[in-house]
């Protein structure tokens, strides 16, 4: 009987003119979002590959020069996108994907599309993820709002209920029928997604197959939560119009207002310093010493260098840096690099903690909107979330200090104060291997996502419980 109800529901939906329009619009949007996501991914991937190769080549083929000067010449490190970024580009628009690596300076990631685009970009890119997160529930609402309320108004519910159909059977039938109609839209999207992942995209994500399946599961739970909610509201609403108004109100709240409010409130609760505040504080700490630190970091920069100088003279049992068998200037520059690296690590760590705290505050709003846990899980699964970005930022800074140390050591070991001239070439620059980003594994990507997993599953379970409770008291009129 469930199958008969589902079949009837499906037939009535697909024969409805409004549904035809809705499905065409939704399909067009999904196709467009897949196409733009694919093009954006392809374009960024090829630009990044070409740029990284060109910059690595430039690094190696730069004019012969002093290695420290070569470190000033610098290089770029690019964050390659995971394959699933075409589906959900996550925080990529705001976080940046390339870092300029140079001596003496710790730089933030650049190339943030949100900086270059207009205010419209604040609404987010038209990615498949965004389309499914925002428009899929709207489609479900439009298809399901009259499932019970509309039948009650038209009188067919009375007819059906007089036949001895249980409300549970009715709910499951309508759920299946509406799901099948939604599936008409979702299926092409899934097939395109699988096709693109299998054949279409270069680049790699760790465990892309598992990630794809998880994405499917998360979006399925999300769709089910909205399906149950829609059918439950339709069962309790007096009129189809009333059900539609209530559901559209919830949809707007859950997909637009709450996510935006969550982001703003998280920034108010855990504010981040401005770019200039961050650099000013780090620079000042470098010059004046880090409060609460042990050892040389606690000293002002001048005293740190002076202490290191004395230790070095004592170690080599000489009276002047001119008598050292190593190049003191390069040595002192490396002291400052190591000191700044430690200081920046502390401040970047604090900044990272702030970002994660902001994320945690936003995630708590998942109690009010199923979109919030889904969004976080979608980004984490696609490898475009905060964990990925922070791993890139950290590994880039580690790479930078290694690169600078390599160049300074060349100078320290091969020159002295009396004979400081040292010109290096490709054989020296080649000792710095190109930066390579290793994305987190699936379990690493899901760090901190437990609450979101629980929330998304809870939304689905609660909405199902609501729908079953609602139909238990189903009125025929």
């Amino acid at each position, binding site marked *: 009987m469930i199958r*008969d*109800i589902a079949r*009837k529901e499906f037939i009535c939906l697909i024969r409805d003119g409004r549904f035809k329009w809705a499905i065409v619009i939704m399909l067009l949007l999904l196709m467009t979002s897949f196409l733009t996501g694919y093009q954006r991914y392809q374009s960024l991937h090829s630009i990044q590959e070409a740029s990284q190769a060109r910059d690595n080549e430039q690094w190696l083929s730069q004019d012969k020069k002093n290695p420290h000067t070569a470190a000033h010449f610098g290089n770029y490190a690019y964050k390659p996108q995971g394959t699933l970024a075409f589906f959900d580009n996550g925080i990529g628009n705001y976080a940046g994907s390339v870092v300029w690596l140079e001596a003496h300076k710790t730089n933030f990631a650049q190339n943030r599309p949100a900086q270059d685009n207009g205010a419209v970009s604040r609404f987010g890119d038209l990615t498949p993820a965004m389309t499914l997160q925002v428009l899929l529930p709207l489609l479900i609402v439009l298809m399901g709002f009259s499932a019970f309320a509309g039948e009650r108004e038209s009188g*067919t519910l009375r*007819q059906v209920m*007089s*036949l001895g159909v249980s409300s549970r059977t009715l709910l499951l039938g309508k759920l299946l029928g509406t799901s099948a109609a939604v599936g008409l839209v979702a299926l092409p999207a899934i097939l395109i997604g699988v096709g693109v992942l299998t054949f279409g995209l270069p680049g790699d994500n760790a465990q892309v197959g598992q990630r794809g399946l998880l994405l499917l599961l998360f979006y399925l739970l999300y769709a089910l939560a909205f399906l149950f909610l829609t059918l439950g509201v339709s069962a309790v609403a007096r009129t189809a119009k009333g059900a539609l108004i209530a559901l559209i109100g919830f949809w707007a709240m859950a997909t637009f207002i709450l996510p935006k409010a969550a982001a703003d409130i998280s920034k108010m609760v855990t504010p981040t310093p401005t770019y200039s505040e961050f650099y000013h504080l780090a620079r000042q700490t470098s010059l004046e010493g880090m409060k609460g630190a042990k050892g040389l970091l606690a000293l002002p920069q001048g005293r740190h260098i002076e202490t290191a100088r004395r230790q070095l003279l004592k170690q080599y049992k000489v009276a002047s840096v001119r008598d050292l068998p190593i190049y003191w200037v390069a040595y002192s520059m490396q002291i400052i690099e190591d000191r700044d690296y430690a200081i920046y690590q502390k401040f970047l760590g604090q900044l990272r903690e702030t970002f994660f705290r902001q994320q945690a505050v936003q995630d708590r709003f998942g109690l009010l909107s199923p979109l919030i846990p889904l969004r976080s899980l979608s980004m984490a699964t696609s490898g475009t979330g905060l964990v990925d970005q922070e791993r890139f930022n950290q590994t880039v800074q580690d790479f930078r200090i290694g690169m600078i140390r390599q160049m300074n050591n060349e100078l320290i070991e091969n020159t002295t104060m009396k004979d400081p001239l040292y010109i290096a070439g490709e054989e020296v620059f080649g000792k710095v291997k190109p930066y390579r980003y290793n994305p987190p594994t699936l379990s690493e990507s899901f760090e901190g996502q437990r609450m979101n997993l629980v929330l998304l599953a809870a939304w689905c379970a609660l909405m199902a419980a609501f729908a079953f409770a609602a139909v238990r008291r189903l009125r025929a009129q």
Partner: protein
Amino acid sequence: MLEAIQLRKEYGSNVALKGLDLKVGAGEIYCMLGANGAGKTTTVNCFLGFIQPTGGQALINGIDVQQQPLETKKCIAYIPENVMLYRNMTGLENLRYFSKLGGHDYDEAKYRSLLDECGLQREAVEQNIDGYSKGMRQKVGIAIALAKQARAILLDEPTSGLDPKSSNEFSELLLDLKSTGVAILMVTHDLFRAKQTGTRLGIMRRGELVREMNSDQVSHAEVEQIYLEEMKY
């Protein structure tokens, strides 16, 4: 068999049914007459389990509707004043769907013959309900009831708005069903049709069954006279 025992329904201070006692046996057509608000439809709704009585019992084949609502609905068919069907489906599709929900599935020829039996024009069978008149919808409603092979039928002003020819065909169908032992409770304002079709007639007034009579013991004119007398109070 349909039976109401001291059936009572109150809506706040308004009493819709005041302890109704009623029995409709197998092979009987009981026509319930009365003005609007007399409690006729409330009685039907109690048998359908759509409303919960404040007191008493509504029994179908001896089973309490409130105790086993799904079980009792399996034994009855219901034809309302306006049979509402799915407008995006054809008459045939509607019949097949409602028949399956009622627990009976037949081959297409049987569905067509049921619609034919109910007087639906053959060319209309595969047309969408959107283009159906009220009479055509009622005929599909009757076909649904026939397909269910119910032993009791509840009718709530089923001929209201039907043309005389359709009403007459409908009455003939009811008489056929009666001859097969089906218990029928019909709520109606149509005194003529009630006298012509019914086995017994009952007049409801303000939630009470104030008069009952066997239709074969009264003429059309007497039915009308008794009815109007009862409505004076």
